[in-house]
């Protein structure tokens, strides 16, 4: 079983590493993120949300789904620990 799990991990890791070959180079000005996405955020964020801190504007507004599920992930971590560990000491 452990060998199987290790094998699955290695195969998934190799696939993910293989997938990074298609990524644009770090800081590539021709990458889709830097050709239109980042400029729009930088130019429009303050105007559209009245939040001077662009990071907060992106995190809370443009990327609201991402932040929501980050919170849900933390919540799930708490629920998992509680369901595994929590007990009342009866004696």
């Amino acid at each position: 079983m452990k060998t199987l799990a290790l094998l699955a991990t290695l195969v998934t890791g190799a696939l993910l590493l293989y997938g990074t070959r298609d990524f644009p180079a770090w800081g590539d000005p021709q990458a889709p993120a830097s050709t239109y996405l980042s400029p729009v955020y930088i130019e429009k964020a303050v105007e559209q949300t009245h939040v001077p801190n662009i990071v907060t504007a992106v995190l809370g507004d443009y990327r609201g789904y991402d932040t929501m599920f980050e919170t849900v992930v933390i919540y799930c971590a708490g629920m998992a620990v509680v369901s595994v560990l929590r007990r009342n000491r009866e004696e």
Partner: protein
Amino acid sequence: MRDIHEHSAGEDLIIKTSVRLLVPFIQLFGLYVIVHGHYSPGGGFQGGVILGSSFILLALAYDLKTSQDYMPVWANALLGNIGPVIFIGVGALCAIFGGLFLDYSALDVLIPLGPVEWRSFGIFLVEVGVGLAVMSIMLLLYWNLSSGGALDEGL
């Protein structure tokens, strides 16, 4: 709130006294980081971690029971559930009032502040939810992991 000297367990006097003096300022700073996330680095996650760590500091310097005097287990569980509910509730309200999910400008129908101001205020509401969730889940993890799930005595 019960007297803090009621529980005799914990570290020595210097640590206890300095922690007791520090904790209100740490909590104030945590609230500041949450509400000032619009203007400076910060926001719900960071402020929530600071708030949670203030209670963990109490638990370290005194014992788990003292930190549970400040933040009862039931209140912690309640806040941990309210946090995600605030976030998802705000998003759902946006959808109910005619916008897209998490499109805060739709809440302008509810209280007319202007759509742009609502996007700013909606981020704030959401950050408060994140802060509450992160604070109580951090404390919950510490309580459970340090006491083996019994929440009575920890490190």
